[in-house]
């Protein structure tokens, strides 16, 4: 069995991001920076109705606008639209303004329907307008039951009932979705802002009836995805079709407004939880009734659930008697898609809130209740490490006992992430030149996690070189195929692959050079013996160097101003494990990022729909709030190193427990539960009985 070096020089160290200099100097070319020869702007016309029958679309007036080179419809003939923002047509032209003018000129004849619903609670009513004509809005899984729940609650020493809700969250990567597409007689080239270059190539080939070999995607740099940038998307296919029609490359980047409408989101959840424990705190009975929406991607017509509506329950805990009922509800809104740890942050928020409420009822320390009921040994250890660093024993006070106007509270919560695991089909190659230079080529991509750096660190370790001696090429479907970057799988997929390439390269170098160990000091001498032909070595993912799952726990301390309702996060301690840490510096950044995204989920972020018009009311950064630099607390990271487990990803577990820990800290501060994310000042004041409750419509 292969194994990782035991006394590594670079692995688990602090290697600076090797593409950092490119990124801080503006030299890195992102998808939206591509300037192909003779490129045109592309833009999309979207439905302004949440539900309508489209009778006809006349593109002629758009084509008469000076500078417009192509105009196409998404679909010919009559069709239905089911959400505000659904794509209808697209134009390509020489300037932005020409395209904007052209979108206004397109004549759409539509029969808008007054029968639509953008609210999941209304959408699940039997008489609600149907999103899909011949199917119920509700896809309800049959209740899952074990033990005897009704009897078991009678046996409990304490029982709590709570209602915990989480909003639809938008990905809002800083670079919007989009691509440049260039369709020539030689085939189609796409420069997509994507986290899955292969999925873009395959998706474009499928949609446009091209051979895979005729389509290439190049994504050198891209500006974030968080789960929303797999496949070409409707916009990617439109860019390609516009390029074909205009006979020129087309850059079609979505606007920030578009981002809120049609390129995915995290589903909402409305969790009714009843939880009971025996006198010693052992969980005994659990009842869970949850519904949520994935927009048009929910309900009976679509099978629902795939985008994270159905939650793992009772999340990381076990109870002998459980009843779980869940439903995905279709509404007239853009479909959900994968979003950093799909279904875990809402599941964590619901269950971990219930745990704290139960602890309060039992008169127990909530950390103690967790240690009592969490059977996972790694998390047990992490709770103890975190509690010590955080100073839990000194900081924890009974809920609501903090004095004064600004009250302090603390909370904690746990995470699990096992959905991913490495991709066994990962391949790669290295070209070793006689001058000793070496280039790795893998058909993966870097969505900001540090993919190139991971490859360089592993290669440097294996070959006895320095990371900056390794040239890394990723983001091109012409390279050997790699996985999409989702499920926290990239690091665990590419590290063993690079290991394999290096092992094979050293073997071959030994054969060809006669030097027994070509590593380190012997490297250049061995390479020189290659003569004039570079050595190209292929490798693939191998067993024994990577695994899953990952765990993690977080502790949070907040101040809550009981006069303004404002929550200020003072401190987060994040304790995480990811097996063998490949690069510590970039791993810590991933954890910071997870915590900060979780903070936004807890306090600021929510897509707001207008019930009457069906539009998204906050499709911009002024009204869809992200955490700013002043909102970010001190974050202490503790990495639990487990090299014996091999490489595991970290991007997703790091964002799972933050909102739950913060919610618990708020409840601990003020002595009442704000069960609805985001925890806005209005909701805090309502919970304190200082204003009439906020009506959730």
């Amino acid at each position, binding site marked *: 069995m292969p194994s990782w070096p035991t006394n590594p020089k670079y692995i688990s160290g602090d290697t600076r991001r090797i593409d950092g200099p490119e990124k801080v100097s503006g030299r890195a070319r992102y998808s939206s920076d591509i300037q192909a020869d003779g490129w045109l702007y592309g833009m999309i016309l979207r439905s302004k109705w949440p539900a309508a029958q489209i009778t006809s679309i006349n593109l002629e007036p758009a084509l008469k606008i000076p500078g417009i080179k192509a105009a196409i419809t998404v679909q010919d003939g009559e069709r239905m639209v089911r959400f505000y923002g659904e794509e209808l047509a697209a134009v390509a032209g020489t300037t932005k303004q020409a395209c904007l003018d052209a979108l206004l000129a397109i004549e759409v004849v539509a029969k808008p329907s007054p029968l639509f619903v953008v609210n999941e609670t209304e959408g699940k009513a039997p008489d609600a307008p149907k999103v899909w004509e011949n199917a119920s809005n509700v896809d309800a899984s049959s209740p899952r039951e074990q033990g005897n729940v009704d009897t078991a609650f009678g046996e409990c020493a304490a029982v709590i009932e709570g209602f915990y809700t989480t909003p639809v969250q938008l990905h809002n990567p800083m670079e919007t979705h989009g691509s440049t597409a260039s369709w020539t007689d030689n085939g189609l080239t796409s420069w997509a802002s994507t986290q899955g270059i292969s999925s873009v190539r395959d998706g474009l080939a499928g949609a446009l009836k091209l051979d895979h070999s005729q389509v290439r995607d190049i994504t050198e740099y891209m*500006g974030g995805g968080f789960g929303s940038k797999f496949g070409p998307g409707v916009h990617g296919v439109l860019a390609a079709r516009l390029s074909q029609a205009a006979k020129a490359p087309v850059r079609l980047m979505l*606007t920030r407004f578009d981002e809120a409408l049609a390129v995915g989101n995290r589903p909402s959840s409305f969790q009714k939880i009843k939880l009971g424990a025996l006198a010693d705190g052992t969980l005994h009975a659990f009842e869970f009734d949850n519904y949520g929406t994935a927009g048009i991607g929910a309900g009976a017509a679509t099978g629902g659930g795939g985008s994270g509506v159905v939650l793992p329950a009772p999340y990381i805990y076990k109870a002998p008697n459980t009843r779980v009922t869940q439903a995905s509800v279709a509404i007239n809104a853009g479909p959900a898609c994968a979003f950093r740890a799909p279904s875990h942050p809402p599941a964590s928020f619901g269950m971990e809130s219930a745990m704290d409420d139960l602890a309060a009822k039992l008169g127990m320390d909530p950390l103690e209740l967790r240690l009592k009921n969490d059977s996972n040994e790694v998390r047990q250890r992490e709770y103890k490490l975190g509690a010590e660093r955080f100073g839990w024993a000194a900081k924890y006070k009974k809920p609501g006992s903090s004095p004064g106007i600004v009250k302090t509270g603390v909370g904690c919560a746990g995470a699990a992430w096992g959905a991913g695991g490495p991709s066994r089909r990962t391949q790669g190659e290295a070209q070793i030149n006689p001058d000793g230079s070496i280039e790795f080529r893998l058909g993966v991509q870097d969505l900001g996690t540090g993919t190139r750096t991971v490859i360089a660190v592993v290669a440097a370790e294996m070959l006895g070189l320095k990371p900056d001696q390794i040239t890394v090429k990723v983001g091109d479907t012409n390279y050997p195929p790699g996985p999409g970057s989702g499920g926290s799988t990239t690091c665990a997929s590419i590290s063993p692959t690079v290991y394999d390439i290096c092992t094979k390269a050293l073997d071959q170098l030994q054969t060809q050079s006669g030097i027994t160990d070509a590593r380190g000091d012997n490297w250049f001498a061995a390479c020189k013996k290659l003569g004039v032909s570079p050595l190209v070595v292929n490798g693939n993912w191998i067993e024994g160097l990577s695994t899953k799952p990952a765990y993690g726990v977080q502790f949070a301390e907040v101040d809550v101003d009981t006069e303004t309702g404002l929550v200020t996060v003072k401190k987060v301690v994040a304790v995480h494990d990811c097996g063998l840490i490949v690069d510590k510096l970039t791993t810590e950044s991933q954890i910071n990022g997870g915590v900060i995204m979780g903070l936004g989920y807890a306090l600021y972020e929510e897509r707001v729909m207008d019930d009457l018009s069906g539009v998204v009311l906050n499709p911009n950064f002024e009204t869809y709030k992200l955490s700013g630099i002043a909102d970010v607390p001190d974050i202490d990271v503790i990495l639990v190193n487990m090299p014996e487990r091999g490489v595991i990803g970290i991007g997703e577990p790091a964002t799972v427990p933050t909102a739950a820990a913060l919610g618990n800290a708020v409840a601990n501060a003020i002595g009442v539960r704000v069960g609805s994310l985001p925890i806005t000042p209005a909701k805090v004041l309502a919970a304190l009985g200082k204003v009439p409750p906020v009506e959730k419509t």
Partner: protein
Amino acid sequence: MKKPEPEKFGAHSRRTFLKSLGTVAATAATAQVESVAAELEQANAEKVIGPNAVPVTLKVNGKFLKLMLEPRVTLLDALRNYSSLTGAKEGCDRASCGACTVMLDDLPIYSCQKLAIEAQGHEITTIEGLAQNGKLTNVQQAFVDKDALMCGYCTPGFVMSVTALLKKNPSPTTDDVKHACAGNLCRCGTQPRILEAALAAAGVAVNRTTKTEVIDYA
């Protein structure tokens, strides 16, 4: 916070304000209304440019950039789409994300909110103009050293905001950095390390930092 100096405050007293107003009012009264209107019309007619493309000269990173632009083209658009300076990024095109931040003279501005024609006659510095002969500036190097970037799309904007801050205030406090970066958004979550990088670049002792620790499980 520094208190306003009373004497300076006094300089803008009600009396001096009325006095200066009076001068303007008197000038207006003595001139004939029609001639003023005509003069204004003529002056404005000379200033109307466009709607078609007009020559625009921008001084970017010390070099003159001669472009033909419609007057409605923003500085960001001119840099990214009419030249090859794509370092400034478009994240929102409406002054809320800061990815497009450049320096106009020494002031950090949202280039998506400035028309290119308005930026003429100013020294424009973009992210591409910081490193000289391939050598990163202290700020850029600190961003790399502290890993103050992930996907890197917001990074040029943050680097420009921090660079402008340090020009004005070489020894900033934590709050100064937060204030200077309040107009920049990052979705990956690099904020703690941007704070560290900014202070490190300034050589200011970091009194607020994320503590990290590796503990072996076995």
